[in-house]
């Protein structure tokens, strides 16, 4: 079911936490709400499921305006960050709860519970209390409970935040598989860009109550609309260099090095201050060249090494390279950049 958020505004007292937000999630799509802590992701989610009253704007499921509906009426499946399993009920009752409160007949409930728990591979845990489950098992129970009513919408609030790295990887693909199998429209709240990029069809990136950009992960990575978006996506993160335009080239502040700008930027007037975004994978070592600096930090990631290069003039560039032993901290190196992959932003951070 399509979700349409129109001019959604939310205030807590005098604080306007979300200001006139617009967002559309297509039917069957999985959308990530990505943003730093406190940007209003959970608030948006709570408005969609009806736990928060909307101060202004509308929320539509399909073509139906559900703005005034109670959470009970909306038929939304939610997985909370803490899972919010009912501690005094066993797994069966936890999963069956949404059907029990609808007073569905017992046999139908049992059939549906065994169906959904089989799908999530927790059918052997039905008698257990939540306290006696591992984090991953609790996660699956919470998912089962959210899906048992066949809701039109599935909302996930940082569902993987409490899991260890290995389990997070498993659950990522598991949740995506379930979402695909059920064809449910889903919103995933996360502040982890890897999660957002690997699990979702599209990402809506938020900051302080505003949606900065909505795009597919690849698109957003390649074409961020601002330094904020560019800085949020990518690990290790992008490096920004500040400088000025002169003669159609970029001149690094505090250095005499000139860098070619990518196509489309020829028209920038001389003297304009800009920022250049350089992703680590677009920096390669060279034997010579105008751009040189000292290796200030080396971090090994196993397959790759990450190098911080402090350029002449003090700005820092990051480079990721297949593991090699010939570059050590303190060494002076020359760098070459992939010109057509460079991202150009104005002083305020807007993409040019």
């Amino acid at each position, binding site marked *: 079911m399509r979700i349409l958020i129109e001019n959604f505004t939310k205030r807590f007292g005098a604080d306007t936490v979300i200001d006139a937000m617009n967002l559309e999630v297509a039917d069957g799509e999985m959308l990530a709400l990505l943003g730093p802590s406190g940007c209003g992701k959970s608030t948006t989610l*709570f408005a969609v499921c*009806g736990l928060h009253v909307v101060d202004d704007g509308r929320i539509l499921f399909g073509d139906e305006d559900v703005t005034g509906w109670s*959470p009970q009426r909306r038929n939304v499946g939610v997985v*909370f960050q803490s899972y*919010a399993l*009912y*501690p*005094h009920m066993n797994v069966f009752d936890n999963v069956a709860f949404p059907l029990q409160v*609808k007073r569905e007949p017992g046999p139908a409930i049992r059939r549906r519970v065994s169906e959904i728990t089989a799908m999530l591979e927790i059918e052997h845990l039905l008698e257990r209390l939540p306290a006696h489950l591992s984090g991953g098992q609790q996660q699956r129970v919470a998912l089962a409970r959210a899906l048992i009513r066949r809701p039109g919408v599935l909302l996930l609030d940082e569902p993987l935040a409490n899991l260890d790295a290995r389990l997070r990887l498993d659950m990522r693909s598991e949740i995506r598989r379930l979402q695909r199998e059920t064809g449910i429209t889903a919103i995933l709240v996360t502040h982890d860009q890897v999660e957002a990029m690997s699990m979702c069809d599209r990402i809506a990136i938020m900051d302080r109550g505003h949606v900065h950009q909505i795009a597919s992960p690849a698109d957003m990575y390649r074409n961020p609309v601002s330094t904020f978006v560019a800085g949020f996506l990518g690990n290790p993160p992008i490096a920004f260099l500040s400088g000025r335009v002169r003669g159609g080239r970029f001149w690094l502040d505090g250095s005499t090095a000139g860098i070619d700008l990518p196509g489309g930027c020829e028209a920038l007037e001389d003297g304009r201050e800009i920022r250049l975004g350089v992703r680590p994978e677009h920096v390669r070592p060279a034997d010579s060249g105008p751009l040189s600096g000292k290796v200030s930090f080396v971090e090994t990631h196993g397959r790759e090494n990450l190098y911080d290069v402090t350029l002449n003039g003090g700005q820092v560039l990051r480079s990721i390279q297949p593991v090699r032993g010939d570059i050590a901290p303190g060494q002076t190196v020359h760098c070459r950049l992939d010109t057509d992959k460079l991202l150009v932003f104005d002083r305020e951070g807007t993409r040019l």
Partner: protein
Amino acid sequence: MTPGKWLGVLFLMPATLFVVVFFLSPVLLTAVFAFTSMSTATGVGEGGYLITPSTLHRLAERGMDRSTAESLGATTYLVNPETLSRARAAGVAAATLDELGQRHAGKSFDGRRGFERALKSLNNRPRSVRALKQAARHFETSVLNRTFGQREDLLAALAASGVRLSDEDRERLVDASYTGWTWTTDNLRRMFGTADTAQVLANTLIYVFVTLILFNTGFALVLAITTFYLPTTEAAVFRGIWFLPRITPPVLYVLLWKWFAWDTGFLSTVLGWFGVASRNWMLDTAFNAWVFVVLINGFVGASMGMIIFSSAIRAIPEPLFWASEVDGASRWQQVRRIILPQLRWPILFVTSYQTLSLLTSFEYILLATDGGPGSTTEVWSLAAYHTALNNYAGNLQYGYGAALALVLVIIGVVLSLLYLRIFNFDALVARPRIET
């Protein structure tokens, strides 16, 4: 012992002293008194020996030959230095007394007639019949209605009066005439044997369980749950109002109820406008009295449960409420499926705690109905108080009252130990009950 341990003992001293003085010793004394016949009549000190007509009656009941018993009550006339000097002091003519002394010293006369005849036969006999009868009076001796300090005094007087008793009868007499308290198990026998006890027991059960179920747990739950769903300010005001009865001085609080229920009080006045005859609504009927007893105690008792339940509800993690709402649960289902199961321990705790405190508290009933009308609202602790410390008849039966109180003490100790086991308080303190 290491110095550290001594320090520990030292620190415990005040508490130990407190427990001994204010808890253990009253309990022990109650247990001791429960097996005595102490009352206002016996006093708490040592008693004397006193034979009254009712003593004679009792003796006959306890198997003394009826004529022997009656003979104890008979009056004899003794002539001895003591009676003579008594008569002299009362102004009987000296000549009469001197002659009586010479002729009949040491004699005893069984009846008035015989002694009067002896007086008449004196040369110096009293001049008028009236004087004669008056003189005779001074020689009357009887063991009846005289208090003897010691057993020996009683026996000496008995011997002097000329009554001969078998050893067995003498012991019976000593027992029956003793006015001090004695050790006895009669109190327990009486308690389990009388219909009054059954009535008081029934009253106690009604009082404790109706108040507990309707108010101390039931209404407290209703208050806690409704205030949970109210906005915070309203909830605080509401809780504050329900807390008032608890912090109002009991006398004032009950007085307000009395004003409310009096025949010229609020209720009568308002109902009077609709033509209902005014009356004392509280003491009008036994049913009304119960309604008021339960309301008065309940309004006070609900606050503790309300506070405990409220904080227990607020300790439930909020996401559980969110989850249940998006899962489609109505308010009522939320209460039944989420809140009540999480309150299992607080409910059990409040119920057991309040059972004990209701069982032992009677001050509100005492102030409100004083057990009336009749003794329809007389509960166990109030009965103990009335028996031992305050009643209309004026004969305070310390022993029996203590026996009644002892039952409460035993129930209290047993229940407390039981609760300590159930709740395993250490664990309760150590580990939160709500798991997420």
